[in-house]
């Protein structure tokens, strides 16, 4: 009952805080003269937003197939729930922190709090799409970034801790860095190039993932138990949806239906294809088998690497970006991870952290003003300075991701238990956290057999609510 009143209280509090904003939104007058909306651009941005939205459920399947049977639902839930959680966070305060008027180059002002003043007219004289369209396109980026991190702590983080971490991380790590790079902050002023999110999305998520994996520690039985992906066809469907959605992610980042969007579309597909081939061949030469998981991972590595470069480089450099990404990310997950011994469950760091870093660096090498005059020339076009600028961007995002994530986890750890208990890990998070199971059967090799009675006894022992199987 006490819980009930605190929820009601929270609702009223939110209402009180947001009411002025909601009312203020009605008073907002469109700026005169109103910039012209382009129908084609608007159609493309809205389509791209839908494409990027589909990436997060795609990621849920990509990750879901790679965990053991007993954690399939819990892993899918983390990505899927973020679509809800961060969509709400973004319209309430995320968008304004990232794209509000610049405050000291670090963060956006609160001018768009609760979408106040974000309307159907374009936001700036150079924009040809409604402000709301730009806002929702960016919302999908804010959604997928924390979802990418979930791969690093899969199979061992408690759901309440995950929700709190994601909400805080999005607010104090993602939103400020998105502002620094895209919202006119200090990295943007410095000239750091990031077309669609190599630093903002992939370095942040991958490196933060590494930190979460280090702070939480290895999964129970890591290194001694066999932990196999339980459903690789699901992973391939997920990778395909990611590849499909990525056309909106990269080509949509042109923010117009124009030649630059077409260029980004082509570089995106080319790099993904090249990395698929190079990862498969690297694994084939190294272990003697061309694996399906390698092909799925390779395409994602290529997509990650081309993300910052898509709208700054020509199609030929994207072949090189993809080929290198496939091999480098393969070595990161197969050699580096084994050598260092951290347990990044689904290789969020190996693919997104390493791939994003290579992509941001490659942008410094291959960028060309002939492709995008809003960009800059890279090393191979006679401007070594861009490599330095990109390295500053990489170092800054690594540092913010590592320090920010570490502090969030340490502070959060004082108030709540972050990690599942060994008993929960043994039973699997599907039953212990969500009271459901993904499959009616259990497979000896991919999961562990669970007796209903045993799971029930555990629920009783931990004082949790009863599981509802066929009830």
């Amino acid at each position, binding site marked *: 009952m006490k819980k009930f009143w605190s929820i009601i209280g929270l609702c009223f509090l939110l209402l009180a805080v947001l009411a002025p904003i909601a009312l203020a939104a009605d008073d907002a007058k469109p700026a005169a003269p109103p910039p012209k909306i382009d129908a084609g651009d608007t159609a493309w941005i809205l389509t791209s937003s839908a494409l990027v939205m589909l990436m997060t459920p795609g990621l849920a399947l990509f990750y879901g197939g790679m965990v053991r049977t007993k954690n399939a639902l819990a892993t899918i839930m983390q990505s899927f729930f973020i679509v809800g959680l961060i969509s709400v966070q973004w319209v309430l305060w995320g968008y304004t922190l990232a794209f509000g008027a610049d405050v000291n180059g670090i963060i956006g002002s609160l001018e768009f709090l609760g979408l106040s003043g974000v309307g159907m007219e374009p936001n700036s004289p150079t924009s040809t799409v409604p402000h709301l369209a730009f806002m929702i396109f960016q919302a999908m980026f804010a959604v997928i970034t924390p979802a990418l991190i979930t791969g690093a702590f899969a199979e061992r983080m408690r759901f309440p801790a995950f929700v709190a971490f994601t909400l805080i991380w999005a607010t104090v790590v993602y939103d400020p860095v998105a502002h620094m790079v895209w919202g006119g902050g200090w990295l943007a002023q410095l000239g750091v190039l990031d077309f669609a999110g190599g630093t903002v999305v992939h370095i942040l998520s991958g490196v933060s993932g590494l930190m979460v994996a280090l702070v939480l520690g290895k999964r129970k039985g890591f290194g001694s138990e*066999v932990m*196999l*992906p339980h459903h690789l066809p699901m992973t391939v469907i997920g990778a395909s949806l990611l590849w499909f959605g990525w056309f909106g992610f990269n080509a949509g980042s042109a923010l117009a239906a124009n030649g630059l969007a077409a260029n980004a579309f082509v570089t995106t597909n080319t790099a993904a294809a090249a990395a698929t081939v190079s990862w498969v061949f690297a*694994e084939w030469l*190294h*272990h*003697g*088998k061309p*694996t399906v*998981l*390698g092909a799925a*991972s390779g395409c994602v590595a290529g997509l990650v690497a081309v993300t910052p470069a898509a709208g700054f480089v020509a199609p030929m450099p994207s072949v090189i970006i993809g080929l290198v990404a496939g091999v480098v990310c*393969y070595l990161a*997950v*197969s*050699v580096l991870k*084994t050598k260092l011994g951290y347990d990044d469950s689904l*290789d969020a760091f190996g693919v997104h952290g390493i791939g994003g870093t290579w992509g941001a660096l490659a942008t410094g090498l291959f960028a060309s003003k002939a492709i995008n005059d809003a960009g800059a020339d890279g090393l191979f076009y006679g401007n070594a300075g861009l490599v330095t600028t990109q390295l500053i961007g990489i170092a800054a995002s690594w540092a913010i991701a590592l320090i920010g994530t570490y502090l969030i986890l340490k502070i959060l750890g004082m108030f709540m238990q972050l990690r599942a208990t060994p008993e929960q890990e043994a039973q699997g998070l599907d039953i212990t956290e969500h009271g459901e199971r993904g499959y009616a059967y259990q497979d*000896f*090799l991919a999961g562990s057999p669970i007796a209903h009675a045993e799971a029930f006894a555990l629920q009783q022992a931990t004082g949790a609510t009863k599981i509802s199987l066929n009830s």
Partner: protein
Amino acid sequence: MEKITKIDIITRPEKLEELKEAMNAIDVTGMTVTQVYGCGLQKGYKEIYRGKEVAVNLLPKVKIEIVVCEVPVEKVLETATRVCRTGQVGDGKIFIYPLENAVRIRTGESGPDAIKDPKDVPMSKKK
């Protein structure tokens, strides 16, 4: 009381259909089949996930449990061995146990009557 014998045949999954037909042909009409995992002389194989090799030495097999009374045990063993043998390691094992008793739940009959073909149900396979 006539002797009741239980025979467990653990063998390659792909031999199941052939074995079932062969057992039917020698009038063994009842069996219980389970998917099992086991290890033995067949050492297993390697799987590769993102460049990490995983040794899998528990291999999928099928276990067929048969209880006989009228049909000679030797005949079952001879038939099962003939059908399941490929000559390679991994063909499996057959275990034979004496049984103390058996009960047919539907009728409450026990002993050999519980194992023998019932008189009151027409057996479609009988020629």
